[in-house]
């Protein structure tokens, strides 16, 4: 059973067709400005990297995009629609999926269940039809199970579908989280430090996985990552945040040499 979406959403990648627009977004917690008037756009089909020192506001930005936190100012536009302030489940409905910096799997549930749950917005059977086991609901249930199994195979975890998620090794948990996010059939996939805790081999495999998934599923990917070589190799463009502000934006080669970026990472007087 293929995991390709039923219909390819929207037009094929074209320059100027921005999928996500972050427009002067600001967010404050108490006295701390976590994100300070950050603006950038992500084009359809791009592999877009987000880097910066710890505490730069990268995860906060993800939380703002996915609705977990409401911005204090600015707008977020997805496919032209203003999604500022929408609650997380509505953002997910529109096709934005994510993984978390500290893996947030449903630990007590099986790997398969974890992935099946994320099929929620792409399925429709309600309480009554589900419990009664009506035909359409049963078909949907079977389909959900098949799609979830295929996704587990895609990330290389097909051998243990019934294993409890919290029993998986850390690297496997991260892959499971990706499978779960893909079950949403997103157009935009947000990955928050997917390579954390992985060894070199695993990091290479992850890189390949991200590239292949992007191609096969026509995804746009927004990636937070600390491991700079991975980001440089993988991404079409990179944005650099420091203390909540956007200090550089462009292709990897240029960003790498940008003086503000060098200073942010290496400190003054390098």
């Amino acid at each position: 059973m293929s995991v390709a979406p039923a219909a390819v959403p929207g037009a094929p990648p074209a320059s100027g067709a921005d999928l996500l627009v972050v427009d002067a977004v600001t967010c404050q917690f108490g006295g701390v400005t976590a994100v300070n008037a950050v603006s950038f756009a992500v084009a359809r089909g791009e592999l877009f990297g987000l880097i910066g020192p710890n505490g730069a506001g990268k995860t906060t930005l993800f939380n703002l995009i996915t609705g977990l936190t409401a911005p204090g100012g600015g707008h977020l536009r997805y496919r032209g629609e203003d999604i500022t302030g929408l609650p997380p489940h509505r953002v997910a409905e529109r096709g934005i999926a994510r993984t978390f910096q500290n893996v947030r799997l449903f630990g007590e549930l099986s790997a398969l269940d974890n992935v099946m749950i994320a099929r929620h917005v792409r399925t429709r059977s309600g309480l009554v039809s589900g419990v009664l086991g009506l035909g359409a609901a049963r078909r949907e249930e079977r389909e959900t199970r098949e799609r979830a199994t295929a996704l587990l195979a895609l990330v290389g975890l097909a051998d243990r579908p019934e294993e409890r998620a919290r029993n998986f090794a850390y690297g496997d948990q991260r892959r499971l989280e990706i499978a779960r996010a893909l079950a949403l059939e997103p157009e935009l996939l947000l990955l928050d430090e997917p390579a954390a805790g992985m060894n070199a081999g695993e990091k290479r495999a992850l890189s390949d996985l991200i590239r292949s998934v992007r191609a096969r599923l026509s995804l746009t990917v927004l990636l937070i990552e600390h491991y700079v070589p991975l980001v440089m190799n993988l991404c079409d463009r990179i944005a650099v945040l420091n203390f909540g502000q956007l200090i550089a934006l462009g292709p990897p080669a240029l960003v790498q040499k940008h003086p503000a970026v060098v200073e942010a990472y290496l400190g003054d007087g390098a």
Partner: protein
Amino acid sequence: MNRTFLLQQVLNGLAIGSVYAIFALGYTLIFSVLRIINFTHGAIFTIGAYATYALTGSQFGINGLLAGATLPFALPFVLALLGGSVVAALSGVIVERLAFRPLRTRGADPLLTLVSSLGVAVALVNITQYLFGAEPYSYPDPLQGWPTAMNFGTAGAPVLVRTVQVVIFGVSMVMLVLLTYLMNATRTGKALRAVAEDMTTSSLLGIDTDRLVLLTFVISGFLGGVTGTLIGLSVGVAGPYFGIAFGLKGLAVIVLGGLGDIPGAVVGGLIIGLAEAFVPAQYIAYREAVPFALLFVVLLVRPQGLLGRAQVQKV
């Protein structure tokens, strides 16, 4: 509405309210240090009331396992009050060691601790009922020779408050001042606030968290015992279940004032007391629902209470 009536209602409200306030002080103190709701506070309150009763040399009635029992000695009221409150404090410590400490070491969800405290409270109250029966008791009057009521109005338009209620109000203010002083101006208070902030780090910094938790329960239990006796003095001991009733009402008081906020406990108590006093006569039967209606509304509208700060969740 004439002034005399208004003043009378206000004073009635403050009188009831100050009782709720002292109860809530012990309740909220535990939340302020341990972030748990200790529903056994109501049971401790009952134990204090019954212990004081026993220490005054009074006899227990005809129901219960210890029917007709009396202690072989009788203490004057104030000593009995102190003794009973010490018994209450000790009970609190035992509950802490047996029921809450294991949950704390396992890092249990505060909800689980609340459930446990509900179970323990019900068990304790029913044990008390099993031992002493459910009849009402009253204490020998310690305020003999004092006028029964004080007049805050004029001779022509009297506004009367029972002396015992004035005493209770005074005690509540003293307790508030002492607790606030303890929490804000002493080293122990600072240590307690550190433990409240982060128990693991405090312990790593050399603070004896166990001893401080113990201290918290001792103070809270003592306050609970004092309240139980004072209520008993004011309206009589109406059976062990009045501890559960107070425990439930106390929830409304501490949430209204702000969970963990010490002045909030007093503010909450006084407000609920006033709200109860001002229920119009035709709805007097619904007075008991007032604290809970307030609790429900506060939870929906401003869960951090009047004096609490809104919690910002870091995702």
